[in-house]
């Protein structure tokens, strides 16, 4: 089942967990000096490994299915750069395993698993299995000293980027994100707003990930990131408890108004949906709203994003107004009455 239809661990503070490995094939140039013929060779080689029999669907991305590609970006299966690429590139996707193999991204192969809630170990172990498959079928560019050789030196070593999407409304309100950011940078981690850079991200959604890939093993990185995420979660929970004690009625009013708008509005923009999502999700986590769960909210966030909404709508959506009406309808269909 796709990650956004499930509720994972620590779902009060964590939306999803994503781990990716960057790998390249020995004997081929990197992307910026790679010829089209070689790119197609690589695509065929990798497509022969991650086959439909293994649960992977092959999607050759090009101008014609640009909207589909953007929808995969909104589902966090692929990167925006990969969707926009002009040279040959192919996606091998398993929605069952929530794993995407991006072939001819910046690196020849990027393996990526995304799971709901906090599940760094599980995502890492899943990914290792797919990495072993890759390793037993092709020769990987590797150096004893520098580890996995990647196009960009920032990924050398493990080639691993592990990131956790956190939901931190109380820390955002208390203006503590900036302080967390400077602490994280000292230990090789980073925090970025999901929507727009800067310390206050729309929807209070943040991505926390490792920066360093050389000299620190995968397990060590996962352990460090897990610890930090747990610490940040606890700080967020403590602040929420304070909110509950001090300003419960004001908060409850705000949350329920947001729920009302989400349920009954005729038109909703993408930006407003994210804001409302944030308040309702906080209401669910604090027990103010009971008949909505986190999976429904993740689904709303993914399925009402512009490309996915356009792709799944029965009608053709030409104007912003048509899209905003369709978005409100979609939300009504997801939330229980």
């Amino acid at each position: 089942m796709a990650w956004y239809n499930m509720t994972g661990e620590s779902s009060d503070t964590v939306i999803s967990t994503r781990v990716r490995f960057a790998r390249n094939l020995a004997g081929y140039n990197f992307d910026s000096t790679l010829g089209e013929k070689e790119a197609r060779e690589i695509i065929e080689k990798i497509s022969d490994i991650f086959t439909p029999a293994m649960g992977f669907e092959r999607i050759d991305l090009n101008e014609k299915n640009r909207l589909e590609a953007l929808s995969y970006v909104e589902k966090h299966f692929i990167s925006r750069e990969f969707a926009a690429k002009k040279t040959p590139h192919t996606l091998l996707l398993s929605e069952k395993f929530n794993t995407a193999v991006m072939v001819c991204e910046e690196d020849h192969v990027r393996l990526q698993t995304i799971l709901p809630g906090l599940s760094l170990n599980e995502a890492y172990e899943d990914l290792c299995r797919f990495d072993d498959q890759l390793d037993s079928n092709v020769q990987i560019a590797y150096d004893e000293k520098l580890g996995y050789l990647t196009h960009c030196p920032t990924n050398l070593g493990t080639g691993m980027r592990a990131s956790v999407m956190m939901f931190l409304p109380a820390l955002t309100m208390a203006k503590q994100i900036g302080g967390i950011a400077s602490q994280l940078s000292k230990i090789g981690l980073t925090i970025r707003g999901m929507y727009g850079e800067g310390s206050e991200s729309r929807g209070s959604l943040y991505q926390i990930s490792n920066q360093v890939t050389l000299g620190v093993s995968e397990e060590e990185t996962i352990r460090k990131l897990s610890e930090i995420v747990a610490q940040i979660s606890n700080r967020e929970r403590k602040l929420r408890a304070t909110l509950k004690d001090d300003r419960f009625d004001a908060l409850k009013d705000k949350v329920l108004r947001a729920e009302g708008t989400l349920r009954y509005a005729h038109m909703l923009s993408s930006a407003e949906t994210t804001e409302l999502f944030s308040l309702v999700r906080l209401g669910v986590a604090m027990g103010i709203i009971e008949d909505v769960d986190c999976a429904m909210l993740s689904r709303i966030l993914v399925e009402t994003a512009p490309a996915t909404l356009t792709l799944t709508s029965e009608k053709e959506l030409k104007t912003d107004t048509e899209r905003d009406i369709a978005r409100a309808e979609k939300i009504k269909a997801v939330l229980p009455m």
Partner: protein
Amino acid sequence: MKCERCNKNEATFFYEENINGEKKKYSLCAHCAEEMQNSGELKTLSSPFAEISSSSPFALMGDTLFGSLFYPAEAAKIGSVAKKCPRCGSTLRDFRERGKAGCPDCYGTFSAELEPTLRSMHGSASHTGRAPAKWKKKRDHADRMKELRAELNEAIKKEEFEKAARLRDEIKAMNEKEEG
């Protein structure tokens, strides 16, 4: 520090030469360094250094980090400025402008120039962690051999000759297995 030639831009290139005892020192901005090099005033450099491209991820990390990678005096000393990757033909300048290697072999070609940058970027220049099966086997074998050799030395030191003989046989067997 300002560039001593134009006195406008920040100096990012520090150049020293010593030709037959005649010493010269310059602190220059990228623009002046390139001009002086083109006019032949800076003799030991054979390739001009362009500004860091703003699209390169390296640009985000500031000049100081890359100062070490593209420090002309250093680069000239190791004689690497005109070096080209034999596989993809990338030069150090290509690498720098792209912010990315051209092929896996670039890392071997430019390893000396890259090492300080990797240290600033990652705090380390050597990998620890997963490896492809082939390499992992090699690494495990090397680790085990190291252990056995240490044990053997210890046994010899303590005059435990029976144990030493057993260890010696084990090492021999492991070597033969690896070669076979």
